[in-house]
């Protein structure tokens, strides 16, 4: 396997089903997005930190769920620009 630029600990990973070159990675500092298969990355401001799961809704790819290790669930309805805590 060849290494991609993200060398930090990866907690979660997902791709956008509408455009699989758009990759989302959950890091300790938040969720980062690459729009070119992983060559360049940008932090999604306001994204939840340390999430263990990132999930695109299969029928509405604008809607993304993120789950933290402690059970907190976050939802974004604008492809990751803004996030809202669903529970707690």
């Amino acid at each position, binding site marked *: 396997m060849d290494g991609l630029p993200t060398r930090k600990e990866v907690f979660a990973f997902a791709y956008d089903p509408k455009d699989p070159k758009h990759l989302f990675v959950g890091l300790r500092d938040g969720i980062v997005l690459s729009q070119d298969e992983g060559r360049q990355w940008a932090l999604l401001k306001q994204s939840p930190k340390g999430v263990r*799961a990132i999930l695109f809704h299969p029928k509405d790819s604008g809607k993304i769920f993120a789950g933290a290790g402690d059970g907190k669930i976050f939802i974004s309805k604008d492809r990751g620009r803004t996030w809202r805590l669903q529970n707690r």
Partner: protein
Amino acid sequence: MKKRTLVWIIMGFVLALNRGNLSARQIEHLNALAIAGSEGVLLAATPKSLYESRDEGRTWRKKVLKGNAQGNDFTTIVVDPSNPKLVYAGGRDLSVVRSSDGGVTWSEEAKGLPTKAILALAIDPTKPTTLHAWAGKQGMYRTKNGAKDWSRVDFGPNHEITSLTSVPIPTGMGGIYLYAGTVGGLFRSPDCF
């Protein structure tokens, strides 16, 4: 006892009961998420079994698992994108299990796997009967027949995998890429070998 005091005591009991119910409707740990079934139920793989939410993650209920899923420590869960009722899950103590009714009834699908500890699963969205399973130090395994049997592929990356995903980006060699999120970064491998 005065009537007003009694009312306050009853209200206190009611509040305490409600708090208990709310905490029971949450999950304390989470390893993976998936959406399954025709109703789009959100499933959470946790160390204490599978949980489901029908309100986009606000409240959760522990699933009653039928069939022969032997363990509880779920690490990973994926859904067939062409059939949302077909769900695969793995865990530290249950190998790979498969459900064809959206996660209600499960059967163990471990033929060819070397261990009960399956830490990550990926389903190929272009050929959903092909899945990869990471069995920790035992290596990477693959099925091409919907988990009926598995065969070893290789060691996988040199780091502990936290998430495994088949991404429909063509490799140029007839396959797609298998991405592995690990404690040492993100890796990818052409899955055609």
